[in-house]
């Protein structure tokens, strides 16, 4: 009868879609992930080796630490029941509500998968092209894997620090409308910090709103608001993979750990349905290419050859209601009065946006000087790919 529990775990493992081994390496050792998850996975490993008593020991230890870890309670139920009768499925509770069992199975799958498939060393999410020097960390969320990856800015190169289980919207991702219970996909940043004492228990250890909808979202007619990273109510350790109204939800202990790395108004949060990872060399090539692209735009502006400068702008360009024609007229008029222009770019950030539209979100401090006008401002640009060229579709103050 115990054999069936092993079979069950095998089924769980087989349910994992195949992954490219160049991106995710199978590893017996988890990273420095949260210890409840490590204990849970050790229990799963013990079950796989038919060491059921050791497995129950791990689960009991885990539940002493986190008695409200519902998935661990489910596994405990299975391990006890397996001593009495054969199990037919993971979470073989009689008369159990199917939706809740389904939620816990999904969570088990996500956690087992995250444990067995670690991001390979020297792989970098392709989105993190360039962090600005004062951005100490970046967050990359993979909604498909129910995972948040934390990276440190190691002299311009993202270095993996840790990863955490997360929940996304009840209806998945690609948020479009207010109330659609979906998590947005795109490039955002943390905009505020809401301390625990100002929130109801529902949000747990705290909340960090992010900048959805961004300029591109608004242009696409996407609406809604109040997308936060937040914690978990006190009655549960974690929530199912699809549980929120669009927020990204972490366990309270993970949120507290993560909070130490967050800089309000600065830390990027990039949300993808399936994070694309690049070998370091490819990432480096990509990064240099796009930095050069930005530099060419800067140089063409300085050249006072307005046609060359305007060639960087898309026909779909729009800046606060100003279309390409209006923008072009304005730039030709301004440039005609210049004998010289100098443009300096500092604190450059560059993030490729996830999703079907190939797009790069660029930020920089622009130091503009000319014979008759100088100013300094923080700018944000959205570049999209048009055939073999990349062009600007949005430019404005940030």
């Amino acid at each position, binding site marked *: 009868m115990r054999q069936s529990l092993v079979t069950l775990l095998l089924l769980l493992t087989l349910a994992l879609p195949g992954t490219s081994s160049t991106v995710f390496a199978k590893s017996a050792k988890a990273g420095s992930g949260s210890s409840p998850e490590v204990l849970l996975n050790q229990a799963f490993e013990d079950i796989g080796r038919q060491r059921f008593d050791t497995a129950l020991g791990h689960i009991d230890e885990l539940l002493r630490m986190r008695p409200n870890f519902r998935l661990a*309670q489910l596994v405990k*139920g299975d391990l006890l029941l397996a001593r009495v009768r054969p199990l037919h499925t993971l979470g073989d509770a009689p008369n159990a509500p199917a939706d809740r069992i389904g939620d816990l199975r999904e969570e088990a799958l996500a956690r087992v998968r995250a444990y067995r498939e670690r991001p390979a060393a020297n792989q970098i999410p392709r989105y993190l092209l360039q962090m600005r020097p004062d951005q100490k960390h970046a967050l990359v969320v993979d909604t498909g894997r129910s995972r948040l990856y934390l990276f440190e800015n190691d002299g311009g190169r993202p270095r993996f620090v840790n990863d955490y289980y997360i929940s996304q919207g009840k209806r998945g991702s690609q948020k479009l409308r207010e109330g659609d219970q979906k998590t947005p996909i795109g490039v955002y940043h943390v905009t505020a910090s809401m301390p625990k004492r100002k929130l109801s228990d529902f949000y747990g250890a705290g909340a960090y709103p992010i900048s959805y909808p961004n300029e591109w979202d608004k242009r696409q007619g996407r609406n809604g608001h109040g997308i936060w990273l937040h914690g978990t109510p006190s009655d549960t350790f974690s929530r199912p993979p699809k549980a929120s*109204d*669009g927020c990204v939800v972490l366990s309270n202990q993970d949120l507290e750990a993560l909070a130490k790395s967050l800089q309000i108004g600065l830390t990027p949060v990039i949300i993808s349905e399936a994070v694309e990872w690049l070998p370091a060399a490819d990432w480096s090539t990509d990064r240099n290419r796009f930095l050069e692209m930005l530099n060419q735009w800067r140089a063409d502006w300085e050249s006072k050859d307005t046609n060359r400068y305007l060639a960087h702008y898309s026909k779909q360009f729009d800046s606060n209601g100003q279309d390409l024609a209006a923008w072009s007229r304005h730039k030709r008029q301004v440039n005609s009065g210049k004998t010289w222009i100098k443009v300096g770019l500092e604190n450059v950030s560059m993030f490729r946006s996830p999703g079907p539209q190939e797009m790069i979100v660029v930020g920089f401090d622009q130091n503009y000087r000319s014979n008759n006008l100088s100013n300094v401002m923080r700018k944000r640009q959205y570049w999209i790919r048009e055939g073999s060229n990349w062009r600007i579709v949005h430019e404005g103050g940030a």
Partner: protein
Amino acid sequence: MKSLLQLAALALGLAVAGAALAQPDDLAEINRLMKQGQHAQALDRVNALLATKPRDAQGRFLKGLILTEQNKITEAIEVFTRLSQDYPELPEPYNNLAVLYAAQGQYEKARQSLEASIRTHPSYATAYENLGDVYTKLASQAYDKALQFDTSNTAAQTKLSLIRDLLSTAGRAPRPGSRTEPPKVALAGADGSKSGVSALKPSTPPAAQSRAAAVQRSGTPSAMETKPAAGEAKAAPKAAEKQAERAGKVASDEVVSAVRDWAAAWAKKDADAYLAHYAKDFKTPKGEPRGDWEAMRRQRIAAPKKIEVSVQSPKVSMSDDNNASVTFRQSYRSDSLKAVSTKTLVMVRANGKWLIRQERVGS
């Protein structure tokens, strides 16, 4: 839990345990009194016996059984605990301790006692069978926590029915080891026509009769006995389930109707009626004092000339008979504001009325 009386029969086997023993005549008389339901007299006799032979294993075991029959669970636990300490090689005291712990809902302790019982006597079938029940119960407790069933109500019922189970159904057709329904259902099944609820009402068990049966049926249950019990146990929960389903439906209708009343009071700008929908322990959104919050709500309700509120597609989830949460789309429109949002109200039933304990919007 099963088989205390099965143990009483086994207890006679203790005569070979080599412990300090009482006269068989005394023990037989005490046994007889106990079987006739004369517990007080039986206790007196056994106490008298133990006054002269304080270490006597049989006598102490019988005393434990009598105390159990008298529902003096704490004292019975005391007797069996000491007995298991003085005679750690005997499996029966451990087993009976487990039965008593289980009756108190202390399943983890019951499990430890049964595991000890099996360690001393690896082929002790009764302990295995009981351990199966305890594992099943512990599993169901873990499942309850995992799935957020309401455990508070059923726990009380389980305890009650366990005690009745001890007193009235031991010695009847034993349950199969794989039984997973709550004990009260088995009781209903064993009683035949009674529903799960009425079975809980304490009617005097036909003690002498069942005990006589127990003596005859000591030892392992036969397959013949096992089958019908399993069949009955299966039929019973379906009816109970339906009943619960109906009850749940009624309650969730009540919740929805309370939410609609609340919205109506709001739309009528009747602040008193609106605020009357909030429970005493309502969690104000930012933890502000109740008075501040009410003043703010009164002001917000008074300010617009007209308010429209509608509640769409409410979904109720009952965590137990008196606690529910309902999620719905709220459309609000006043002269100055129009807003559609997802709202969740955590509701509690107090004095037959559903009140709001917590109010949440959005993500």
